[in-house]
């Protein structure tokens, strides 16, 4: 299951928890990624909507794919407002092999950007503005426009 934070992720505690929980798993390599909100375009924060049932399904698919390769996947994401210089996304892969872990992390985050059911908004002047131009239609989009 994806760990959902209301607001920013408590990154220090989360990384400690992941490392502590897995260091006895004899994995050898832990590769992690943390995404922090950059101060740009005059935003105060980013804000996120998540559709949890589908996010968890999508995530469990990835978890199983990685488990088949002997690797363990963990992920956290924020819902609601995440101010600049705080973090909205973190994931980690534990694996016996570093190279495999790095490759999988890249593929996972790539698919995350395209297919995880999460919607992003810029918060400017207290208003929530959908980040339409940075968003990607999910696989299979346009189905209901057909026929």
């Amino acid at each position: 299951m994806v760990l959902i934070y209301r607001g920013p992720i408590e990154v220090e505690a989360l990384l400690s928890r992941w490392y502590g929980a897995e260091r006895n798993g004899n994995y050898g390599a832990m590769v992690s990624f943390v995404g922090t909100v950059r101060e740009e375009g005059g935003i105060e924060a980013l804000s996120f909507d998540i559709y949890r049932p589908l996010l968890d399904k999508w995530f469990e698919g990835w978890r199983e794919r990685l488990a088949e390769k002997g690797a363990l996947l963990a992920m956290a994401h924020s819902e609601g407002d995440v101010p600049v210089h705080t973090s909205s996304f973190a994931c980690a892969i534990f694996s016996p092999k570093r190279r495999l872990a790095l490759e999988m992390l890249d593929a996972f985050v790539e698919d995350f950007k395209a297919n995880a059911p999460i919607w992003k908004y810029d918060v400017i002047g207290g208003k929530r503005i959908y980040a339409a131009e940075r968003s990607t239609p999910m696989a299979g989009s346009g189905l209901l426009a057909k026929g």
Partner: protein
Amino acid sequence: MVKVEFLGPIGKSPVEVDASTLADVAEILRRDPEVARWLEQSAVAVNDKMVETLDVKLKSGDRVSLLPPVCGG
């Protein structure tokens, strides 16, 4: 009745429609100008399972979700 929900930025409350296939739902939604502009770029799930064809049969109590373009991270 089939429940249709509009996720994320579509920002519209769920509606109940009378439909026996996803094609029926498509036809109904195309008539709503507030929703129609999202159809081209939205993916669709039925009962939280992504679908890729309009032939999907629906029964009363089913839930159709519209998923507009995403951007996590």
